[in-house]
């Protein structure tokens, strides 16, 4: 994506942001709250139309992108919450994710032709495989509402993976996870890069620094830094955006020691 700008009414949510996800890489997108990370994601998904800029995917410009075309293009996305279908079992949820691999049409379903059964069996196998990969196969028959949040997150990830995308967009996959679970997630993300590229929005710095090959930093809709994790960490503009201006460690320490009355 190059030169993406978005404004809602008079508010400029993004101005002239560019980033490129290289094949097989994990690209991190970070920034303080309200920096425009999710908006950029929504642009990439066709949920928000940019007022300027181009989105290019596999050397082709995507104009008038609609969210429903996304999976056909080989792009999957998870939502910031979990966005699971409450009335569907876990297995069915993941089967919906494999929608683009379904072949049997309306009339074979209407007449319950064996082709529809066979097609459904293939989808089910795919979905079960994805659940096994994420260690959630024992929940296949349950409804998502009754499951612990981390399990729901895994199911949502399975639903995105089962489409076998070339680009996986993860919107805060680690929110609500414990330290151990986050570690597992990091390993999983590294593991899938053999099959696909990943664009990751995340708040947990240690996870981002560990798994990402490249990082783009946004602040108030502006792109303030880009590069490898080490480069980004060393960039003073990034520290400033996250911690406010001029970090004076000694002054902070002195204030803490004196009891910090105006905290």
């Amino acid at each position, binding site marked *: 994506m190059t030169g993406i700008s978005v404004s809602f009414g008079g508010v400029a949510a993004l101005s002239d942001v560019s980033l490129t996800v290289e094949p097989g890489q994990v690209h991190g997108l970070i920034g303080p709250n309200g920096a425009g990370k*999710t908006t950029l994601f*929504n642009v990439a*998904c066709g*949920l*928000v139309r940019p007022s300027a800029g181009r989105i290019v995917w596999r050397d082709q410009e995507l104009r008038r992108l609609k*969210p*429903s*075309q*996304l*999976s*056909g293009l080989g792009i*999957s*996305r998870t*939502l*910031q*919450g*979990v*966005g*699971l*279908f*409450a*009335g*569907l*079992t876990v*297995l*069915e*949820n993941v*089967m*919906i*994710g494999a*929608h*683009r691999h*379904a072949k049997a049409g*309306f009339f074979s*379903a*209407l*007449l*319950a*032709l*064996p082709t*529809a*059964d066979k*097609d*459904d069996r293939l*989808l*089910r196998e795919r*979905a*079960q495989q994805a659940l096994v990969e994420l260690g959630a196969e024992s929940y296949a*028959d*349950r*409804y998502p*509402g*009754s*499951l*612990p*949040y981390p399990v*729901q997150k895994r199911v949502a990830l399975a*639903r995105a993976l089962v*489409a076998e995308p070339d680009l996986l967009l993860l*919107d805060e996959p680690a929110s609500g996870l414990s330290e151990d679970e986050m570690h597992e997630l990091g390993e999983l993300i590294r593991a899938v890069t053999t099959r696909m590229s990943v664009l990751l929005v995340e708040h947990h710095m240690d996870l981002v620094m560990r798994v990402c090959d490249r990082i783009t930093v946004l602040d108030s809709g502006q792109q303030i830094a880009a590069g490898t994790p080490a480069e980004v960490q060393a960039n003073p503009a990034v520290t400033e955006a996250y911690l406010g201006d001029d970090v004076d460690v000694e002054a902070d320490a002195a204030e803490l020691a004196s009891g910090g009355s105006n905290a």
Partner: protein
Amino acid sequence: MSDSQTPTSAAGAATEEAPVEATAAANAPSAQAAGGRSFLPKSTLLRHLVVVLLAIVAAVVILEITDPFTNSQLAQLSYYAIAAGGLTVLTGLNGQVSLGHGALMAVGAYTTALFLQADEPVPLPLILLVSTLVATVVGALVGVAAARLHGPYLAGATLALAVGLPGLAIYFHDIFGGEQGMRVRAPQPPDAFKDFISFVSGNSATGTKWLAYVGAICLVITYFLLANLVRSRIGRTWRAVRDQDVAAELAGINLGTWRVLAFTVSAAAAGLAGGVLALVIRLAAPSGFTLVLSLSLLTAIVLGGLGSLLGALLGSALLVFLPPFVTDLGADFGLDNTEAAQLAPFVYGVVLIVAMIFAPAGFVGTVRLRWLTYRAKQRAAAARSSSGG
């Protein structure tokens, strides 16, 4: 804006309740994880054909052991149930509320009436098929127009259909007979049917009985096809669109297309129901397709359990059999005829209110939720005993 879903469930809650209670009846999983043992055939087609066979036997038995009046009531039940089945798929599975299904039934009824006016009418199955197709086309047009609307807005738009369409029949009174409607000449039962009845029970094969059988056949075919859809990927996709439209869209589902498809399918059922209705009451008139008809269908599927075909059948049965039952009961208690007749809507209203308070998931939905809770408890108990011992 897209990320509407926030986590609400308590971690590790031991229930298996489907959280959307109102549509719990619709959520019978279309895919079981491997391992469950079952005596039913694996193939959906075989399984549903077994049910169809049982339904046919049951229909013949019921129609032959009951008197002609009950036969005509059962014919009435069949057209209510056909329309309710279509509506429950739309409302329960896809989450769209339509108040216009009475009008779509009118489309089917008038088409049937027009075709039967001919001196040499085409065969009955063909007429009913054409009625279904005409209603399907009208339904598809309405569906396309309404695809961007949700909930109350869709209900409003379809309400306009329910109010407006019967008006067309009055406006074009030369063709549609205006306020008086069109008399329908019910076709005579074929000889094969008379032979069949005399072979099975020896009852007289009257026109009423023939129409009850026509209704039953249409009902079985409709439910067979709808059940196939519900249990397939199509039904699953509809439920996904109902539960989380953004997530469904991201999975590659074109929301508009699938909503229109659901509306079209349910319009087809309504059209067939209208055709059967015209045959059974031998009249297609605007007064038969008021808003009350659409509302009755909605209450029927809500009482039975949204999204369940069995629920739609039960709700329709309540619609047909409760009023005469209550009227008889009132007469037994010494009320005069008018008072007894007024009792029926009152009792129906009370039943509806009681159901909404104590069983908001409808009959089938409530049973299903109980079953799920029971199973979850058993599973929890099993887990406890295995970890304790």
